[in-house]
């Protein structure tokens, strides 16, 4: 059994008067893929945005309760979110490369964190990140072209490369394949399998099949509550909760 990387205890999230997460207690294991499933608006994305404090961007959002990474309180008011986000990378639902060159997309993170002082160090980081995201062979001859000129699947892998360029410990993926075709999706899934050797990964997905394919642990959310969490195999074969059973068999959601 691997170590627990991230631990949430009694986590509540409010958007203004509306409560989006209720008392979520969820542990994420190190170097493992945890899938979060559930119907739209159930709080999966809200939960992962708590891990890198992306909810700070939303003025009316309030987070209470406890969430820790390696014993460090993520919700601490004095915590430097910049340092946190260096450790916790994120990939979004829609590929959002910067409208800059492929090279600049990847070198941006290392540059602002002072990694890669020289050009050759940066070159190395860019190459490594692109290799890890299985994009190197496709783009190595056109690193100067804008990132937005790539296809959707390539753009998403570019975003993954951008996330791993700062060498994070955790990667959050918010429905990374929802805008992609099946072939691009398959590539990303392969990639996730490879990445979990190095990183702790949390993936929000609407595809049950994807959760089964890529994750070791699955959490099922419904209406802001974590209904059930366990080994992926168990959740999909033999869930304890009736609601989970109904959801994975497609009876609602």
């Amino acid at each position, binding site marked *: 059994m691997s170590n627990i990387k991230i631990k949430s205890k009694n986590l509540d999230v409010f958007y203004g008067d509306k409560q989006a997460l209720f008392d979520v207690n969820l542990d994420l294991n190190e170097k493992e893929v945890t899938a979060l499933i559930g119907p739209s608006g159930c709080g999966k994305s809200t939960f992962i945005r708590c891990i890198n404090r992306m909810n700070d961007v939303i003025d009316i959002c309030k987070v209470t309760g406890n969430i820790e990474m390696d014993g460090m309180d993520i919700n601490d008011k004095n915590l430097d979110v910049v340092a946190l*986000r260096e450790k916790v990378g994120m990939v979004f639902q829609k590929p*959002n490369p910067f409208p800059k060159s492929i090279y600049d997309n990847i070198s*941006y*993170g290392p540059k*602002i964190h002072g990694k890669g002082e020289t050009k050759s160090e940066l070159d190395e980081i860019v190459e490594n990140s692109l290799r890890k995201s299985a994009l190197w062979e496709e783009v190595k001859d056109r690193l100067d072209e804008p990132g937005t000129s790539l296809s959707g699947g390539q*753009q998403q892998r570019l975003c993954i490369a*951008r996330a791993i360029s700062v060498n994070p410990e955790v990667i959050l993926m918010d429905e990374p394949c929802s805008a992609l075709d099946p072939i691009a999706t398959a590539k990303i899934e392969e990639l996730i399998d490879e990445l979990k050797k190095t990183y702790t990964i949390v993936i929000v997905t609407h595809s049950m099949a994807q959760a089964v394919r890529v994750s070791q642990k699955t959490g099922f959310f419904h209406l802001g509550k974590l209904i059930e969490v366990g080994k992926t195999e168990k959740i999909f074969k033999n869930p304890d909760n009736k609601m989970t059973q109904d959801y994975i068999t497609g009876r609602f959601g």
Partner: protein
Amino acid sequence: MTKEERLKKRHQAEKRFRFYGLTSIFVALLFVVILVQNIFSKGSSAFKKTVITTEIFFDQELLEIQNGASEEDIMEADFYDLMIENLIKAYPAKDRDEEDELLRLFSGDAEIEIKKAFLKDNNLIGKTITLDLTASDDIDQLHKGNYPRDLPEERRRISDFQLVIYDYFVENKKISKNFNNYFFNNGDSRDPELAGIGGALVGSFYSILICLLLAFPVAVLASIYLEEFAPKNKITDFIEININNLAAVPSIVYGLLALQILLATIQLPRSTPLVAGITLALMTLPRIIIPCRASLKAVPPSIREGALAVGASKFQSVFHHVVPLALPGTLSGTIIGLAQALGETAPLILIGMVAFVVDIPSSPVDPSSSLPVQVYLWSESAERGFVEKTSATIMMLLTFLIIMNFVAVYLRQKFEKRWN
């Protein structure tokens, strides 16, 4: 109604709409054409001036200076007698009255023009040269065909005798049209043939420069702060509403504000581009902030999130990603704001830029005019020569506005980056 009838009706509605649209575009274009044609036909003649080719003999007896005199001496020397003696030879006049009428065919600057020729070559004493001397406004307008000569003499500014001289000049090919350098180089003047937009051009340039230096940084910083950093609450809402209100405030109100605060209270020098620039900056500020904020708002949030997610601080995400993407829109908004400021007249009238200023301002604290105010001033003048000058000034103003708008469009298209 059958299916066919309904379909037909839908197509007809579309056709009708297309017709209305085309008609309105046509009407709008027609007005533009009429306006431009009117201005061009009236104004284009102002770029030429009528000159009278005259022989000038530099008679030592009429001058107090010698060949090789220094520039200072020439400037101080009196060329009046020399001018008179030479000009009256242009046509055989019988008596003093006829000579006076002859002299009135030349511009008031004839003496200076002769002096300038001597400044260029100070060895002219004892020699004769031919000079193109600027004609008076009456001859200028007559030669350009703007002056009806078939009116009875008492209703004409030109006497019958002067017409005879003019015809004599034309016959002997002594009269011609040159490029009107006075129009661009001179300041304002009571004599239309000498009046130019030089002062107004420089005044407008200083005003717009000061307006840009004040309004651009303030507007950009204000928009970035309001759009990216300010908390969304009642105070920012209130500020936003008021920026929109300020953009709609009539410009003359800014003129009144400047009159009270800048001139009466702070006692800045009146009629100067400095005050004009500050006034125009106040007026332009909200008009720049609005397009700036719009172009910041148009940058998709996913770009900000992408930057934040790799650990950029708020400041870095804004200045590394959002601002560069918003820059084309910001710049074109600024240029269009400045173009509006360039054409603004009312506030400048209130801060005293309608003063009659002959000298070309050498700094922003010298009294000055500006292009639109010059149009206003000349449009009120009675002399025929100012009609074409007014139109020509409008042409210059329109040219600058069109150039600025082109630059705005060019910047937007050149630097606009696509995001998905």
